């Protein structure tokens, strides 16, 4: 196992900045306690990266700093080689953020919401209109295109928020617990859509509590605990690092974040 408190990840160090979608160095954030502790993280371009960890581990705080929603106390964030703290506008142009609590406008229809998002990212209306329609249809929202979002269920709102994140065709998509509140069919839709984006060259970073999703979808998994990256790699690499070649991600996760519970 490679621990971030002893050494930076080996592969990122040799990676050129333009090869990485995201490069985080020494990222630190303190609220009333240390939430993120000098975190180093590198996500390769075109990769599906899952960030897992217990509640309060610092996953959301880390991603909010990457998305420009929180100012770090220390450290650096580079998105496709662009310094996101020095040049946030250029970095944001390449990114999309989807929060676990879908934030949309109740009084807009899904199409109006997507038109607004596309306008904010400066997308050509002819392109964004067709993309918006296709996205909403692929997420099963076609019957609701003309309805205002105020009566939508949480799952439907999450789909609208996700469509908003995709409508401007970002190169890096950051999602915080995107499958929370979705039914099985919707979750499959979303997973399919994200998989398609990765195959098209897009980079996806996602936090999740559903370890099965991380296990099945992610190219690499990062395990975060107490604000530090305690392990990282493909599932096979994580198993090898822990000396358990046939163990599940759930067992590995418990071993990594709470060794005492694992021993018991």
């Amino acid at each position, binding site marked *: 196992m490679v621990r971030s408190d002893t050494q930076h990840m080996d592969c990122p160090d040799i990676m050129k900045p333009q090869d990485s979608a995201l490069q985080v160095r020494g990222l630190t954030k303190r609220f009333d306690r240390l939430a993120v502790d000098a975190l180093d993280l590198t996500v390769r371009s075109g990769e599906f990266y899952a960030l897992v960890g217990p509640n309060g581990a610092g996953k959301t705080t880390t991603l909010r700093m990457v998305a420009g929603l929180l100012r770090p106390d220390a450290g650096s964030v580079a998105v496709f080689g662009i310094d996101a703290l020095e040049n946030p506008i250029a970095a944001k142009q390449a990114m999309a953020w989807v929060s676990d609590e879908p934030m949309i406008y109740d009084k807009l229809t899904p199409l109006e919401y997507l038109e607004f998002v596309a306008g904010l990212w400066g997308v050509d209306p002819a392109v964004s209109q067709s993309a918006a329609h296709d996205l909403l249809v692929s997420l099963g929202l076609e019957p609701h295109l003309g309805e*205002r979002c105020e009566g939508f269920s949480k799952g439907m709102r999450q789909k609208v928020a996700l469509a908003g994140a995709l409508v401007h065709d970002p190169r890096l998509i950051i999602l915080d617990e995107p499958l929370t509140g979705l039914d099985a069919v919707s979750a499959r839709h979303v997973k399919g859509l994200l998989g398609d984006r990765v195959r098209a060259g897009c980079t996806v970073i996602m936090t999740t509590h559903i370890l099965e999703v991380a296990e099945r979808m992610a190219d690499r998994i990062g395990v975060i605990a107490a604000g530090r990256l305690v392990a990282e790699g493909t599932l096979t690499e994580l198993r090898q690092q822990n000396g358990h070649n046939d163990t599940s991600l759930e067992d590995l996760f418990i071993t990594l974040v709470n060794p005492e519970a694992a021993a018991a």
Partner: protein
Amino acid sequence: MSSATALTWFARHEIRLAWREWLAMMTGGRRGRKRRAVIGLMIFAAIMHLPAYAVVGRFADLKAPLDKSTLIVLTATIVLAWALMLSQAIESVTRVFYARADLDLIMSSPVRLNNVFSVRIAAIALSVIAMALLLSTPFVDVLVIGGGIRWFAAYGVVVAIGLSAAAVAIAVTIALFRLIGPSRTRLVAQILAAIIGAGFVIALQIAAILSYGTLSRFAVLTSDAAAAFAPDVESYVWWPARAVLGDGEALLLLLAGGLVLLGAVMAMFSSRFADTAVRVSATATPSHQAARTRAFRAGSRQQALRRKEFLLLRRDPWLISQTLMQLLYLVPPALMLWRSFSDSSAVIVLITPVIVMAAGQLAGGLAWLTISGEDAADLVATAPLPPTRVIRAKIEVVLIAISVIFAPLVLPLSFVSPLQAAITALGVIIAAASATAIQLWFRVQAKRSQFRRRQTSSRLATFSEAFSSIGWAATAALALAIPIAAVITGLMTAGIVAATWKISPRRA
């Protein structure tokens, strides 16, 4: 648990909820402010005795028998209080239907829904009466101190009209549900609540303008025509006025009437209350179908923001009701303006402060909705445009909306008096800019639906906004009448705005 015990327990629960909702409104939802809120309220109540003395002090010596004109004025005042209570009660009923998150829990519990909703109806009546008693206390105190303990009967009248206002509000709201459905009722009830209170005063003002060419509603109430039209002094119409003056029989009859009315509404509507609540929760999806899908529009990022803000403002039920109310308040001065075309009355000067004051108040609300009430804060914050441009686009929306609403009033004024029109326009711009700036300095990220609590999130911002609107309205009026005095009030108001900026959290 017996049925009676369950009801008592539920009544206690309702009172506790109402108390906490009220406390949250007073403290802005922050803990540790309870003591400060109570002390602040007591100081406010003490200070309110001064304006109360100015308004009702001279009536303390009134004694029965009264002449018709005095009876008309007294009864009109009671009707106004009733209209305001009705407005508050309608607002409370819709809040219980739409905002309380406990309907599922109550309806899935093994209790008789009719009983539970009877308690809830009683709780609504109680909260309306409690608020009315609180607001009327300074006025009744002044009357008791000046005219003796017989004026304590006024509290009884407040209770009686509170009971009837709650009863009518429940009947009206449930009737609206039946007639126009749950989704439209929310908007219509909000509009009704907003205009009922103001409607009575405005109707009197309109009558005064049309009949006597003055804005004073007393001109109508004390006129010979009103006295001739009013029923005889022995009529039951004057019972409320007689009850206020300490007529025990009239007071008891009034209280009994209020209780019977509320009891009848409970008996008739408690079962429908439950049914209506079920329909509201089942009709969570209002069917606002867009007529057609139009093409996405091109434009800059700021244009996208402005378009979104305008669309949301247009669809905001609070804004629609508030704008309607502001426009209603502007009807009397607009009517004055129309009359002034023919007789060039000097009273037309009164229009300027009313317009400036309304612009400041409306701009404050609009600024809160656009700047603080951002439902997708994360989306806007992660968009590739600088925060300064986001704020600028939102401020532009407020100022454009104010221009669109007030230009139709200022433009006709320019035909009557170009100087007054110019001063009014300047006053509107400065009052709107000041209110917007105060909202900007005190902005706190919130949901648009939390608009009701905007005034409790920062008392300082609320008072500054009110003083700034009043100050600029006074300055504009004085600029037309005594220009040198306008310089002084203008400097004082600018001082208030500057002091607000100095102590605002954004500057810190």
